[in-house]
């Protein structure tokens, strides 16, 4: 047999068939057949071509250097809250940002994040985001807007900018500051105003009061042995809280190793996560914080001679205040007094004075120049703007971000004044309440879409680097401001680079690339300012507190802070019958900017575990006195305005006080944000931005259902979240183990699972956990966990794989609180595995309790039999949230999106474990401790969660599990959980007794 040239065997007859070519009555020969086949294939190909979609598919001719399909890249950027930055590393999957992590090099992050940063990536893809530039509701191109701004510029040039006003949120961005300065230089009569609903005006006023000039305060919580918080929720609120929680937690471990553990006293007017972590907590009405601070100050000998009851105020003889003062005095230079942003300037001034007096300044607290581009009392700034608007002085108002129509103080009349402006421009992420009142609406680029820069709490600057081109053609504030310049088409990139070209040391391109890579610009932290506050005549300053404090900040403006700073005695005497009201930023949606973020809406508030709503918090005693029960709809009347709010009884809330949170009750927020909760801004006057007396409460007789993820907060005497005083552990090191009993291993009817290689396990330190929820959102983001909506949460069907249990035991007026994060504990004898009829949940050799989604038929038996109740079931097709095209880009490609009728639960981030193992195998080594970090662990500001190989005796998790504080939750059932908990240590002051309530 001869072979054809291509080496195929050819039948000998095929060469003799040529003669038969015509006619072929007997049918096709093979050659002919191939011809026809070839022709038809070609034709089929041609016809198929015409059916191709017209879009061009272009393969990589040369693969981009860094993109390997399936391999995520991380880019450093930063997110701002209240103008101040937290450094982030954002994961990019083939160009899609999918997950936010902290930047370990950034001082405000140290690798951790908060819930807001974790959820920010959802806001990026939010399909409700504004997608078009509008002029009076008509879609317009960007060029039309540029033309309009050109008009404004020409118009205003002749009047030196007298008709131009710019309203921003708090600005720390050097580029934006530069642009504003340049604009104001070109148009000297134009004005720039700042307003942010949760701005720390009081802290600024307090600093001026105590020190004489606005300063930035940096507490070194890790250096403090004794901390007194005067209504400061420093562990879960504020621009540095991620860092402060880390520093705080660093001193909560200390107790076990013998070093001194810190002691936290919290005096607060609402029940916060920081209060829950206190060794001694005292609920006080907001107006009582200042007298309390004065009493402590008097007791340490500040101002008036100590011992004089009048000088000491109503708390002079108070046991708690005296004990705190004595403790602070015993720890001179190692104590720390923190004042909450919402407390009066006087309280801030007292905190500065106390720190100075006690020698803490320079050790546990340092001062720098302000970080904001222009520190000012923002309320005054807004008031001045409203005055100008009302007077008809303003022709053009540029609102760059923010939502002042929604969140301006109710009595300022911002909305009415706004109507008098001829040309109103609003730049925002959503077509919101303010956009509604403006002719021009410019869709804002999300921070992951645009170039910018920002400073952190210590002044460290970061470049905000975009990871994706604007999804909806959004523009940054820089680009909108540039439109008012001679180079209107400058891009954000050029603007930011222009700022830093002159400011970066060394060769610019190298420094720039370094800054982008690291996420921080070296040497930009502000220098510590030497300060000798002890010598300041604090009492003199406090006595003259009526004087307009903010004059030094912004000359010529009447102060609102002064009104809030009136000597507190006046307000204390209003008596118990008068109810006070406190306004606070919401723990999950902040000032309302995250109202349309489903992850944050469904995130349980740290203490109440309420989702999708805000509530009017009242103490159990007050509730009883007024006959109020949970979910009763109340009508709150304050300063002549009314709002209807559902009541929620919060143990630990001070009596005779109603606590409300801001940000809810939006009307134009999108699918999730509109209609959720009530609008507390509607009763928030300028004179009482954070607290005020005289709120009237009336029961309407209606009920409003509230969705909570945890309805029972008592531990029922069970040893679930164990806690002990550090002294107790010193006396009896095995105290924690003795609280429960653990059956010996090997009692199971079935043989143990064969184990080889790694043995994954986790340890969670309850002493560190501050209940901040960062881990919960991190888990949601990493694992494509769906949100289910309020109606499903009401029915107990929330899907979060990780929850933070909150227990409050003891006296209802001031109970002992403890947080306990609970996800699947990966039992070695897992009750769920035993009962699954289809082997959909099975044990891996490395000890993981694996869930095989496509094997699950949904009997829910595993969930019933799980003593930890950590399994989550898709009662409906919840994952339809990924159907919106933009939301599909959000999903983590390494994690299956689950279908209806399937059980799911924590996997210890098995995709990260696999990734780590593959990486180690490529490098021909075993996985090193710390190589694999779960999403919750990575996000945790306090470093409470540690994951690793428990077969390796030297791993961090092994060492933690060997601690005498380590115990297994419900280990008495013989489940042998792989996640163990380290009991929460407390460090009570012996003078105040062991019990936490003072």
């Amino acid at each position: 047999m001869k072979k054809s040239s291509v080496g195929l065997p050819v039948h000998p007859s095929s060469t003799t068939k040529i003669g038969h070519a015509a006619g072929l009555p007997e049918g096709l020969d093979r050659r002919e057949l191939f011809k026809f086949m070839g022709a038809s294939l070609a034709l089929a190909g041609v016809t198929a071509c015409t059916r191709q979609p017209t879009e061009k598919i272009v393969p990589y001719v040369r693969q981009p250097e860094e993109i390997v399909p399936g391999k995520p890249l991380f880019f450093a950027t930063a997110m701002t809250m209240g103008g101040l930055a937290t450094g982030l590393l954002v994961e990019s999957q083939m160009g899609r940002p999918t997950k936010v992590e902290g930047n370990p090099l950034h001082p405000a992050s140290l690798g951790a994040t908060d819930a807001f940063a974790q959820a920010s990536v959802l806001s990026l893809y939010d399909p409700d985001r504004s997608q078009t530039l509008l002029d009076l509701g008509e879609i317009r191109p960007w060029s039309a807007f540029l033309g309009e701004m050109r008009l404004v510029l020409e118009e205003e040039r002749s009047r030196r900018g007298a008709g131009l006003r710019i309203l921003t949120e708090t600005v720390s961005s050097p580029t934006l500051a530069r642009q504003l300065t340049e604009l104001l230089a070109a148009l000297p009569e134009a004005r720039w105003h700042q307003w942010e609903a949760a701005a720390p005006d009081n802290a600024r006023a307090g600093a001026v009061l105590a020190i004489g000039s606005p300063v930035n305060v940096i507490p070194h919580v890790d250096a403090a042995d004794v901390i007194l918080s005067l209504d400061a929720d420093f562990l879960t609120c504020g621009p540095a809280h991620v860092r402060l929680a880390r520093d705080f937690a660093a001193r909560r471990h200390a107790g076990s190793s013998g070093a001194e553990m810190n002691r936290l006293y919290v005096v607060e007017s609402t029940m916060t996560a920081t209060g829950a972590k206190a060794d001694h907590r005292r609920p006080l009405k907001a107006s009582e914080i200042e007298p309390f601070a004065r009493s402590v100050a008097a007791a340490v000998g500040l101002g008036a001679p100590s011992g004089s009851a009048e000088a000491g105020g109503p708390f002079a003889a108070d046991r708690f205040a005296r004990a705190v003062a004595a403790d602070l005095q015993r720890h001179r230079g190692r104590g720390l007094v923190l004042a909450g942003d919402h407390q009066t300037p006087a309280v801030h001034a007292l905190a500065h004075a106390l720190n100075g007096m006690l020698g803490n300044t320079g050790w546990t607290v340092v001062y720098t120049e302000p970080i904001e581009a222009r520190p000012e009392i923002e309320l005054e700034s807004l008031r001045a703007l409203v005055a100008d608007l009302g007077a008809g002085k303003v022709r053009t108002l540029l609102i760059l971000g923010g939502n002042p129509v929604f969140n301006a103080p109710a009595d300022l009349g911002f909305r009415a004044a706004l109507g008098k402006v001829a040309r109103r421009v609003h730049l925002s992420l959503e077509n919101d309440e303010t956009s509604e009142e403006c002719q021009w609406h410019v869709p804002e680029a999300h921070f992951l879409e645009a170039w910018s820069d920002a400073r952190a709490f210590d002044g460290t600057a970061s470049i905000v680097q975009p990871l994706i081109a604007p999804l909806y053609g959004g523009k940054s504030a820089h680009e909108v401001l540039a439109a008012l310049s001679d180079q209107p088409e400058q891009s954000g990139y050029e603007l930011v680079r222009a700022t830093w070209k002159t400011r970066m040391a060394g060769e610019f391109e190298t420094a720039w690339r370094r800054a982008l890579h690291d996420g921080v610009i070296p040497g930009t932290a502000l220098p510590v300012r030497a300060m000798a506050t002890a010598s300041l005549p604090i009492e003199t300053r406090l006595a003259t507190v009526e004087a307009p404090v903010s004059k030094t900040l912004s000359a010529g403006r009447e102060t609102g802070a002064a009104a809030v700073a009136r000597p507190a005695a006046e307000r204390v005497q209003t008596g118990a019958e008068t109810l006070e009201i406190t306004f606070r930023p919401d723990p999950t949606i902040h000032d309302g900017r995250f109202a349309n973020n489903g992850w944050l809406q469904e995130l349980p508030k740290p203490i109440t575990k309420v989702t999708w709503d805000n509530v009017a918090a009242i103490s159990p005693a007050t509730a009883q006195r007024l006959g109020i029960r949970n979910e009763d709809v109340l009508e709150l009347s304050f300063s002549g305005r009314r709002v209807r709010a559902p009541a929620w009884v919060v143990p630990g809330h001070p009596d005779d006080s109603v606590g409300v949170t801001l940000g809810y009750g939006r009307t134009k927020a999108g699918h999730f944000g509109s209609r959720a909760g009530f609008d507390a801004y509607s009763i928030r006057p300028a004179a009482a931005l954070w607290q005020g007396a005289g709120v009237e409460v009336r029961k309407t007789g209606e009920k409003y259902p509230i969705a909570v993820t945890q309805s029972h907060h008592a531990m029922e005497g069970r040893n679930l979240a164990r806690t002990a005083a550090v002294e107790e552990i010193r006396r009896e090191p095995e105290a924690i183990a003795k609280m429960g009993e653990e059956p010996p291993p090997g009692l199971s009817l079935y043989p143990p699972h064969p184990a080889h290689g790694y043995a994954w396990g986790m340890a969670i330190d309850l002493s560190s956990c501050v209940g901040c929820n960062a881990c919960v959102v991190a888990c949601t983001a990493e694992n494509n966990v769906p949100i289910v909506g309020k109606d499903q949460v009401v029915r107990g069907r929330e899907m979060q794989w990780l929850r933070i249990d909150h227990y409050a035991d003891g006296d209802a007026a001031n109970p002992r609180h403890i947080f306990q994060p609970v996800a699947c504990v990966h039992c070695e004898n897992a009750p769920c595995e035993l009962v699954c009829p289809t082997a959909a949940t099975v044990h891996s050799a490395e000890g993981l309790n694996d869930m095989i989604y496509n094997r699950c038929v949904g009997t829910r038996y595993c969930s019933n039999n799980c003593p930890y109740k950590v399994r989550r079931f898709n009662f409906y097709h919840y994952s339809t949230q990924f159907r919106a095209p933009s939301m599909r880009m959000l999903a983590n490609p390494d994690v299956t999106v689950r279908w209806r009728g399937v059980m799911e639960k924590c996997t210890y981030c098995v995709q990260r474990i696999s990734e780590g193992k593959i990486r180690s195998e490529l490098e021909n080594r075993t996985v090193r401790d710390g190589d694999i970090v779960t999403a919750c662990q990575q996000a945790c500001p306090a470093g409470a969660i540690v994951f690793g190989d428990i077969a390796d005796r030297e791993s961090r998790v092994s060492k933690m599990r060997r601690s005498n504080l380590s115990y297994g939750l419900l280990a008495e059932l013989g489940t042998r959980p792989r996640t163990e908990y380290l009991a929460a240590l407390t460090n009570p002051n012996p003078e105040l007794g062991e019990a936490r309530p003072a």
Partner: protein
Amino acid sequence: MSQVHDHGRGGPPVIGPGHTYASVTDKISSIVLARRTPLFWLLGFFVSFLLTMVLLGAVGYLFAKGVGIWGVNQPIGWGFAIINFVWWIGIGHAGTLISAILLLLRQEWRTSINRFAEAMTLFAVACAALFPVLHLGRPWLAYWLLPYPNTMALWPQWRSPLVWDVFAVSTYASVSLLFWFVGLIPDLATLRDRAKRKGFQIFYGMLAMGWRGSALHWYRYETAYLLLAGLATPLVISVHTVVSFDFTVGIIPGWHSTIFPPYFVAGAIYAGFAMVLLLAIPLRKVYGLEDFITMRHLQNMAKILLATGLIVGYGYVIEAFMAWYSANPYEGYMIGNRMRGPYAPIYWSLMLCNIVTPQLLWLKRVRSSPPALFGIALVVSIGMWLERFVIVVTSLHRDFLPSSWGMYYPTIWDWATFAGTIGLFLALLFLFIRFLPMISIFEMRTLVPEAGPLAMQPIPEHSVAGEEG
């Protein structure tokens, strides 16, 4: 010797006086063949058919949307579906007990009630078997619980009680069906022979499988029937024991209890006899069958009800006692929560229904009053449903970690599905009494005086020869 002669000593006879072979056959077969369909039947069937349509709608909506339409949640993963499953399975038990165990024990009074009790078993099992499939998250994959050869080379997970359930229930259903059908064959032949219309002749003729009533037929029939009775007897015990394993194998306080198997079996018989009474009392009235289902039957069943009720009551008491005696805080909380928690009214109603009410049966006056018996049977049926509610829901809603405690509220779809299965059950039952002899004709004939004392034995003389004392 046989108890038939002891009629006079105790209560009323097992068959009314004056009946002959012919009158028995006439009376029972006429219900199917001759008599006009009564208004009662038409109305009853119409209502139960409507309810069956409700079931169809509820199931259709369920398949379209998912189990989210029910009230189940975290932590209460099982709700009405499993409650109804256990309840229906329990009801089925009386049929098998009457037909198999009472046959082996030669309680000849069983003869007039065994046929429809068995039919009741089958229909109850049919209703029960719906629920484990319906309650799945992905019901179209229910067959994954079966050990069929597949490309994934995967077997069910044999340690799971749900897999045991599949076998227990399917075995039970097939043996019950077989037992019922075999018992029907001689009567189907009777109907074939008496049917006037061609269609009925063919219908019954097919089902009668060529029965001619020869001695050999009878011999084989009796042997097969006895063997099936022997097979069915352990199933009465095993099915509900396995069903109780669904709970006892779990570690949830309120489930993890060794008393469950016997207490579930007793409860099943209790519920089953209550249902037999519920059905028998109106049927004998409407069809004038007081001669066949006599007061003797009702009284005997009442006595069984009382006895099993006491066993069940013992179960409740011992459960509470062990919770205290074990000093296990979770068990202790569980029983306290049942008694004082949010579902306490249900717990105490259960006690009232299942322990207190049946005590009336100690009174002969109550045992001899069909309306009173009907009322008590109804209360017991409700009580047994509440018992399953207490076991399933109150155990799950507050288990180990107070942080995950929750509440269960059934939705309209839970109720619709439950009501729908009652409709399906009744509709099947109405079809049964219309098209098949609801009382065994040939066995009843053994009870008439013509049959003579020896003929009273439901099984052939020779097969038990030597046992007669």
